[in-house]
């Protein structure tokens, strides 16, 4: 789906946990996430910490969308 969106002309970032799959399938902008059942969360944290974690990940996704890339790039720092 990520490639179809890219092919339609929209920049797209894939937030997912198993990044090797995203790489193989061909996503260009990738942000690694926490875990399969809760990619943008962590039930072990309290509500505020979890929100902060989610915000940090979404911020990385926005960095990915505003960064020019030539090849597949994983944004994890």
């Amino acid at each position, binding site marked *: 789906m990520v490639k179809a969106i890219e092919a339609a002309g*929209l920049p797209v970032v894939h937030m997912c946990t198993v990044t090797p799959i995203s790489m193989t399938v061909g996503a260009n902008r990738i942000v690694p996430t926490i875990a*399969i059942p809760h990619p943008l969360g962590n039930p072990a944290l309290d509500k505020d910490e979890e929100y902060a974690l989610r915000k940090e990940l979404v911020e990385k996704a926005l960095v990915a969308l505003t960064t*020019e890339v030539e090849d597949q790039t994983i944004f994890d720092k």
Partner: protein
Amino acid sequence: MSKIKVVHYINQFFANIGGEEKADYPAELRVGEVVGPGMALAQKFGDEAEIIATIVCGDSYFNENLDKAKADILAMVKEQAPDIFIAGPAFNAGRYGVACGTIADAVQQELGIPAVTGMYVENPGADMFKNKVYMVSTKNSAAGMRDAVGKLAPLALKIAKGEPIGASCQEGYMPNGIRVNFFEKERGSKRAVKMLIKKLAGKPFETEYPMPTFDRVAPNPAVKDLSKATIALCTSGGIVPKGNPDHIESSNASHYGEYDITGVNDLTEETYETAHGGYDPVYANEDSDRVLPVDVLREMEANGVIGKLHNKFYTTVGNGTAVASAKAFADEYAQKLIADGVDAVIMTST
């Protein structure tokens, strides 16, 4: 002639430990045990081989702890010193296929022990590993176990005995880029004419030389000014309004959902849930923001970090959904996103 020694790798589901709620089961060695599909393999082996140990590992555990799981399992396999390592078959289970391919490849590379696995051709593990490990082509669900074992067991025996391996179409493994010559029964001129006659008659025919499809899409230019941009959220994690009003299937989705989130600042347990049957739904049902981060993007919209969070999100269930279907869904809703003036998309997956 002593029996060929096999170590078999399976996941928590096929070991009958549990489903998604047990996907975090750490790697476990069961010496002398034949478990789940191992029994079917053992039956097919007859007297020629025996499974000396079975390794069980949860699919989420493996994929979320790649280095540790690999290291632990390699140590287990090394200690057992089998003649061959068999992983799966994984059918269409994505994490399982990736785990099988990863561990079979690691066993070959790092321990020098031959390995073989099996899965459905659309399993993400297939493209990742079919050129590195012999990978039998299976049906897309465990209903195809007999067919899978029927190809996996004989191939494993051949590899273990060091016998020459025939072409992919003969042995039932996925084409791996290595050419193996064999004699056709009919000569080429006859085959070519037969194929042409079928083609002229509009009948289906099988090409002997499929053209490669290069499937990469070039990245689009980055968003220039986030504060003016409309960002849309999409997901393959199956987030839907509570009650799943459009009945998106938990596996092999036949359609996608388009939902209006005007005025929605936060996804709650009362208002949203996941329809996806391929991961433990507890956490997403408690708080769907954990898969579709509406809450954070609303805050960013309110603070002017982004121009706008698009008022619709597009969702489907990635679990076992055919690649062609997913592509068709996204082709369609991408056009809607463009028509609605969206500038960029965040796609989340589980």
